């Protein structure tokens, strides 16, 4: 990266701000695409590197968030393609994300934690394309933003997301019912 000395500080500040703001979301994304913790860390660094390189080309044609998610998901696609055959190693990443309880008592905390873990597992089991869509949705991107990130048409995004979201909700309900019965 060849930056002018006076612009270097600004570049670094901008990069830091972007990374700080989106670190948690990027880490959730990495853990959703990877089979192991080490792999997720590698992917995070690949995304961080791609962001650093691409920032020099960023002219603000899209929002920071759209731009960042495009890079993250595209880098993840390349990463997963190359690393697919090397996954039988190290500890699996399943259930590794911490699930802080949102409720006030133990019971509601446990229920919340179970739902979060279940959601995490269900997302990871989705095919790549569906996972990409649902991850964008779960991180709170609007349909227009998802359209800008993926390049799919709005109607395509809406239909597919509606189907996936419904399926996720159903499965979560089923899992919840099972937990209550047991």
């Amino acid at each position, binding site marked *: 990266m060849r930056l002018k000395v006076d612009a270097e500080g600004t570049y670094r500040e901008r990069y830091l701000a972007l990374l*700080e703001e989106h670190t948690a979301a990027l880490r959730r994304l990495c853990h959703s695409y990877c089979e192991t913790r080490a792999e997720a860390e590698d992917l995070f*660094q690949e995304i961080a590197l791609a962001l650093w390189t*691409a920032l020099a*080309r960023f002219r603000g044609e899209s929002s920071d968030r759209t731009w960042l998610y495009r*890079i993250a998901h595209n880098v993840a696609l390349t990463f997963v393609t190359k690393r697919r*055959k090397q996954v039988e190693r190290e500890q699996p990443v399943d259930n590794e994300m911490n699930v802080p309880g949102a409720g006030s008592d133990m019971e509601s905390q446990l229920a919340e934690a179970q739902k979060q873990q279940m*959601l995490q597992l269900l997302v990871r089991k*989705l095919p*790549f394309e569906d996972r990409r869509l649902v991850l964008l949705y779960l991180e709170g991107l609007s*349909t227009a933003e998802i359209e800008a990130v993926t390049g799919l048409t709005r109607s395509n995004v809406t239909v597919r997301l509606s189907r996936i979201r419904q399926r996720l909700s159903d499965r979560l309900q089923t899992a919840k019912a099972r937990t209550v019965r047991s």
Partner: protein
Amino acid sequence: MSFEQNDELCRHWQGLDPPRSGKEVHEIMELVETRARRFERTIFWRNVREYVAAAIVAVVFALLASNVKTPLERVGYATVSAGALWVILFAWLMQRSRQAPLPESPGEAYKKALLAKYDRQILLTRTAWAWYVLPTTTGLVVASLGHDYAPAFGFVMAGFMLAVGVAIAILNWNAAKTLAAEKRELQRLLVGTE
């Protein structure tokens, strides 16, 4: 139709706290900055090395061609020299026309560019025997056969050059197979939907 972004699923998801690496954000930035600089340097020097090596081969074999006794040997060395120049030209043309997929492209455009990149790399490695191995190996084999030392030794040298050429071609062919497997994996990922 637009989705309610603050629904239960989003709330659950955004409540997840993924494990961290123990590195602060500024440490990650420093790491990334170093990696980016090192990567640029590596690519630059790799290209310089390849061009310089090919140029040296072209010059040395051109000089050899002008100083040998037998016509067959001269033709052989001249072929190697021309082959090295051709490799420089071909690599430069390929590099100029290369369009790497930019990660900031929309997903669908990125996928197309990535598939095109695989096609290109597969084609280049699969045909390396023709544009890379064949001219130089042919030249070396011809020069070995044309040398004025004992004919048996000339045949041994020619056989050795041929074996090296075939080995390089096989390595490239295997690299093409690995790339083709990666491309299939990518296609499998892209069509997979519930």
